[in-house]
């Protein structure tokens, strides 16, 4: 039942093994992969950075909320930081439950809330333009 920011490659099989258990008939997961485009622009790679103490604190709160709202046995979320290439895994979310609807819903909740709340930033490198911080336009009016 944990949320972790990691500089190491995400290992889905290990994380799945952490949360599988004999009372859970259901396991649901989400993997976020680095893709080769965003908003119609070809992407060459990206960098994630995080304010780690708060990211792990807020991430743990999200996991705890999932545990309280959905009937799950366990859950884990690991988000990678550092330089990532096309085809790398950026984030893994897994949830186990007695039944599938709780596992699916908790998994969805954890990734949605993580994307909305956790202090992690993404800098995309484009093939045909300067690198940009996603969601942070630099030409905002003063």
């Amino acid at each position, binding site marked *: 039942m944990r949320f972790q920011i990691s500089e190491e490659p995400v290992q889905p099989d290990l994380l799945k093994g952490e949360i599988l258990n004999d009372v859970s008939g259901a396991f649901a997961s989400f993997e*976020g992969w680095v893709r080769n485009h965003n908003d119609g622009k070809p992407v060459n790679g990206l960098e*994630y*950075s*995080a*304010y780690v*103490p*708060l*990211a792990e*604190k*807020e991430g743990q709160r999200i996991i705890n909320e999932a545990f309280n709202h959905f009937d799950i046995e366990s859950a884990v979320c690991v*988000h990678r930081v550092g330089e990532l290439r096309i085809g790398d895994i*950026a*984030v893994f979310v897994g949830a186990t439950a007695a039944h599938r609807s709780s596992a699916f819903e908790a998994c969805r909740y954890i*990734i949605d809330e*993580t*994307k*909305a*709340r*956790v*202090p*992690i*930033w*993404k*800098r995309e490198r484009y093939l045909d333009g300067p690198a940009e*911080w*996603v*969601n*942070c336009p*630099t*030409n*905002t009016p*003063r």
Partner: protein
Amino acid sequence: MKISIEYFALLKEQRGCSSETIETVAKSPALLYSELKSRYSFSLNPDSLKVAVNEDFADWDSTLSDGDTVVFIPPVAGG
């Protein structure tokens, strides 16, 4: 009072460093950001930021104390 500030993402790029400790009379994160924004010409407005004090989210009008650590949080993009 002395306040430690950590910068991330676009703010780090625009400030030119990842952290600093400053002497300030700003009593709240809102007043502190206003001071820094005008000194360093940050392009992000407070309404697109969140703020954290001592490693947790805080209100913009909370009271700062000597030795606090403040982080202004640009729009997040994890996942």
